[in-house]
């Protein structure tokens, strides 16, 4: 498969990139690591006349501890994040999740920004031109009906990024810049929850960094994912759990976020409500099982990502349960150590 023809911009500074993005609007697509956009361009899902590569820009890569927290440049590679001692010390769940994405060679060039802002996926959408011709134009490509669920007027494409559930669970914020202005939003607000246009980001906006806020209390988090194989594949279900524990071992904040669970990462509010306010040691078998069952209910699944929806819903529960158990175990370890 070959890339379609395009004209390439290789700006050296963020300002140049932003200026180009505001001039060329949606005729221009941004290339970070090239592991995600490349596939879609080769399949002719998108054929932008202009491509802007971020590879020469230095100001948006790297890991730095600042007063507000840990700042990850948007074009930091997943390998760097997985290997960083700073990330392992402060947010081991982020390091672990980054190390589980795809495969080593993809992580060596794939960026955290690119992983976060990836397009939704669907077996019927992620195909080259010939099979798509037979299927007819689907909702996501501007047609009238979904191809995965015939006749459905809502896009069933799935958000399968690994980092998003984790970043949302730990309360991360994204810094988006455009020529002349910037905005900082919680990562969860980057997602529309809608398959056709899954991201709340304008064509002239560039994600430059992700801030992981460091809190003073005890917290622990875990991420569990399952793909068809042990490597390379996108997750078919995943769950990130974050627990912040305050005085008297009371869970001050609990967040359960599912991945590959619909058009965007899904926050399982019922599970949060169930656990928040209890003492960590009181989150026993029955509470944990109930929380996991909420995850299963929150999971949206249709038959468009290889495994059957019923199995994926069970997976969501099982993975949420395992992530919760691991987070609780880490909380108890900290308490026993301290």
């Amino acid at each position: 498969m070959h890339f379609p023809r395009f004209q390439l911009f290789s700006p050296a500074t963020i300002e140049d990139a932003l200026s180009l993005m505001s001039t060329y609007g949606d005729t221009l697509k941004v290339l970070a690591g090239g592991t995600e956009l490349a596939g879609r361009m080769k399949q002719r899902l998108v054929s932008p006349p202009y491509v802007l590569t971020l590879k020469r820009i230095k100001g948006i890569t790297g890991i730095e501890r600042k007063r507000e927290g840990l700042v990850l440049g948007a074009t930091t590679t997943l390998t760097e994040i997985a290997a960083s001692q700073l990330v392992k010390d402060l947010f081991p769940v982020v390091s672990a999740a980054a190390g589980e994405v795809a495969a080593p060679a993809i992580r060596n060039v794939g960026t955290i920004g690119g992983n976060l802002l990836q397009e939704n996926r669907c077996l019927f959408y992620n195909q080259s031109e010939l099979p798509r011709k037979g299927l007819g134009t689907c909702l996501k490509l501007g047609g009238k009906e979904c191809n995965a669920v015939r006749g459905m007027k809502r896009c069933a494409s799935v958000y399968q990024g690994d980092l998003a559930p984790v970043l949302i669970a730990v309360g991360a914020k994204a810094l988006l810049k455009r020529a002349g202005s910037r905005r900082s939003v919680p990562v969860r607000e980057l997602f529309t929850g809608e398959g056709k246009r899954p991201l709340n980001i304008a064509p002239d906006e560039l994600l430059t960094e992700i801030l992981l806020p460091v809190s003073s209390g005890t917290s622990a988090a875990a991420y569990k994912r399952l793909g068809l194989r042990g490597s390379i594949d996108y997750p078919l279900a995943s769950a990130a759990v974050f627990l912040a524990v305050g005085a008297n071992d009371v869970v001050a904040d609990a967040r359960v976020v599912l991945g590959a669970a619909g058009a965007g990462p899904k926050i399982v509010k019922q599970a949060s409500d169930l656990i928040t306010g209890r003492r960590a040691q009181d989150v026993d078998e029955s509470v944990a099982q109930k929380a996991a069952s909420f995850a299963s209910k929150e999971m949206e699944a249709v038959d468009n990502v290889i495994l059957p929806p019923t199995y994926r819903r069970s997976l969501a529960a099982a993975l949420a349960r395992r992530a919760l158990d691991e987070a609780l175990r880490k909380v108890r370890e900290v308490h026993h150590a301290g």
Partner: protein
Amino acid sequence: MRRSAKYARCTMPADRTRGHNKKKRKPAANKNALAKRSKPPTAKKSIKEPRRPAAKKSARARAAATRRPAVAKDLPKSGRSGANTGKAIVPAPVDEQRVLLRVNKEEHELLVPAHRTLAEVLRDDLHLTGTKESCSEGACGTCTVLIDGLPVRSCLLLAIEAEGKEITTIEGLAEGGKLHPIQEAFVEHFAIQCGFCTPGMILTAKALLDTNPQPTEKEIRDAISGNVCRCTGYAKIVEAIQAASGTPGSR
């Protein structure tokens, strides 16, 4: 179904221009002249000449090939907007670029279209066909090369972006006809059947052993987890890498 005249002549997709689409071809004579004049003293290989015959291109055709669609407002003039608008000079887009690629410690100066991947340039222009292309979307690993020592999918890397990096392909491992120890180990341990995954596997193994000379079996399996093999079932490959690292494999 609408069919363009191009399809009537040949079955190549319209945007793949290996001599089949005369309108978009660059004149070969110019290319060589440009390249030879600025050939760096250290380059050992001659400039690769395209196999297709030189084609004349009318001024209009040349203009059409590089004309941008008139959809963007306030288009800056190429490279010289500073003179008129007072804004900083913003680099112009390119649809092709002369790049210096350093492959296996040799330098090659090439005129590369923006949309060509490193895999295509290595195979088609430099005739280094050890690097394979299978899935073409980064999932199989047959296109793996080393960029500054790190395994990377060359099918996903634009050739222009590989400038300034140290590129290692499978052809760069053997020295003076003598196989690299990892290559030897693959041969000795029957880790090669059809051979298609082999270049990517060996380069991935080299990257592993260069940073972790005594890997555990798990570390080996994790390192090659991005390289698919349909023939061997991986057992012999893991053994070969263990042998190359000096750790005897368990039998």
